[in-house]
């Protein structure tokens, strides 16, 4: 037990000031952002699921691929690189989304309401955190890929990296939804295996091209299909299938709507 007997008194003439101002940008600031990012980096489970796993998977399953798969004219290593990178980005943004529910469970959201931090500023912090967390696996897997034989035209490297990052980040909405659905620290225990399952079903861990026609059809109805196809478009070339965008918008819209629905249901007791 900490023991102190004489707390230092502040001088009586150091009067409490009543003239105060409201912080700029609703309280959004660098110190807050730095601590939020530190929390992500310190979370071992998040780091394993979102960074270690995609890197190990790429090294184990992506690197050994031949330059090209039979009958297909794109670089197989680059295909796998994008797949595992987007998996990492999705897992990371999902974890940040789900962390909001942990904060609610611990009464932190309520505590923040007793500070000048506004709702939009809080959301902005979470969006930036999710995007940074999603960027880490993408940059890492792409870097390893570039040194181990993944090849694409220079322009495709940049566009696929950006698309992988953005398409991975929007998966934060699934994290939010599950976080509000399971308002406790169990959310990530459900999401971890759940995301892997979706990655198998959506053709991320298992290339779509290697699937049977039926399986490809099934895959096209799962949430990761559209987003990952968009991320691979710079590599695959050809024509852009509008169904990718439809799939992405519908799934992200559903997760977002689900999160808002659950949030508004128990918001009276924040």
């Amino acid at each position, binding site marked *: 037990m*900490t023991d*102190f007997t004489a707390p230092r008194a*502040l001088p009586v003439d150091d009067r409490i000031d*009543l003239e105060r101002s409201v*912080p700029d940008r609703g309280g959004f600031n660098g110190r807050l952002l730095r601590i939020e990012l530190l929390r992500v980096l310190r979370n071992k489970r998040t780091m394993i699921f979102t960074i270690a796993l995609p890197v190990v998977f790429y090294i184990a399953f992506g690197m050994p691929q031949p330059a090209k798969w039979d009958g297909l004219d794109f670089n197989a290593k680059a295909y796998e690189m994008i797949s595992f990178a987007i998996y990492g980005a999705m897992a990371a943004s999902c974890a940040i989304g789900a962390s909001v529910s942990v904060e609610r469970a611990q009464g932190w959201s*309520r505590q923040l309401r007793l*500070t000048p931090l506004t709702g939009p500023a809080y959301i902005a912090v979470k969006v930036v955190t999710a995007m940074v967390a999603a960027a880490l696996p993408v940059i890492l897997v792409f870097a390893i890929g570039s040194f181990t034989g993944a090849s694409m035209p220079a322009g495709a490297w940049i566009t696929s990296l950006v698309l992988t990052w953005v398409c991975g980040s929007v998966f934060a909405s699934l994290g939010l939804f599950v976080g509000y659905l399971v308002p406790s620290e169990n959310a990530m225990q459900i999401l971890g295996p759940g995301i892997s399952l979706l990655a198998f079903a959506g053709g991320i861990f298992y290339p779509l091209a290697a699937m049977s026609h039926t399986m490809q059809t099934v895959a096209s109805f799962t949430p990761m299909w559209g987003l990952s196809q968009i991320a691979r478009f710079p590599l695959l070339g050809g024509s852009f299938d509008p169904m990718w965008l439809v799939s992405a918008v519908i799934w992200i819209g559903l997760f977002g709507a689900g999160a808002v629905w659950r949030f508004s249901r128990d918001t009276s007791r924040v």
Partner: protein
Amino acid sequence: MTPRDPQGAPAIELVGLEKRFGQVHAVRGLDLTVEQGEIVAFLGPNGAGKTTTIDMMLGLSTPTSGSARVFGMEPRDAIGRGLVAAVMQTGGLLKDLTVRETVDLTASLFVQTRSVDECLERAGIADIGDRRVQKCSGGQQQRLRFAMALVSDPALVVLDEPTTGMDVTGRRDFWSAIRQDAQRGRTVLFATHYLEEADQYADRIILVRKGQIVADGTGSQIKAMATGRTVRATMTGLSDRELASIPGVDSVEMQGDSVTLHSKDSDAVARYLFANTNARDVEITARGLEDAFIALTGDDQQGARR
């Protein structure tokens, strides 16, 4: 709405405050004005509506009717300016942060702040700044909540059962720091269900019961109400209203023929009973502070009548 100048405004102003949760009428028309610099105890049993009232005072929930203003502003405006801080009973901490990070993060959200080191020191946790919150004891977590409340140097601090989980030293240090800051002009309102704590540290005690204020006065005034004696008798013929109007009677409880009267002048009441009623088996007992507190705030069937 443009906020009034906080300079002369009351620290807290509750007018006709009411809160319903479905069938439950938690706060029933509460009027309260707390001037700047007062130390006020909000005393009442669990379920009296203390926390519900505090939530509305802090803008965490909206009143069903009536209004709550802080320094003449909407609570949210006052909080945005860092005029108000609160120490809650439980929760409100992130387990994966360190003690120092928690205070630093809180400080980053306000425009005018005191230094993080000073607040850690005054809360008595300067030596555990690098400890994770989840490794802190209940008392240390409570000190951390206090450090967070100090960092914005608020003009009003609201404390909900502030010393829960603190040991004796913790309590003493906590209250000494609170009183020091009150001398600098800080207004303090704390909720408690300990009469002793209220009496010891508050200039003014507000007794709440079933969402209403039942008494408002200094510690000694409340204690005077709380002292006095209980007169029990078996009698018939008088209604509780008639009994309450007997000179010297503060409150009445009836259970069939058995009548219990609370009074500060039990002799006069007994004399009246013998002279004017058919009272028998009259019994006079002293009542203690806690007993009286229960009588004033307790949830008995007849209710305490003043």
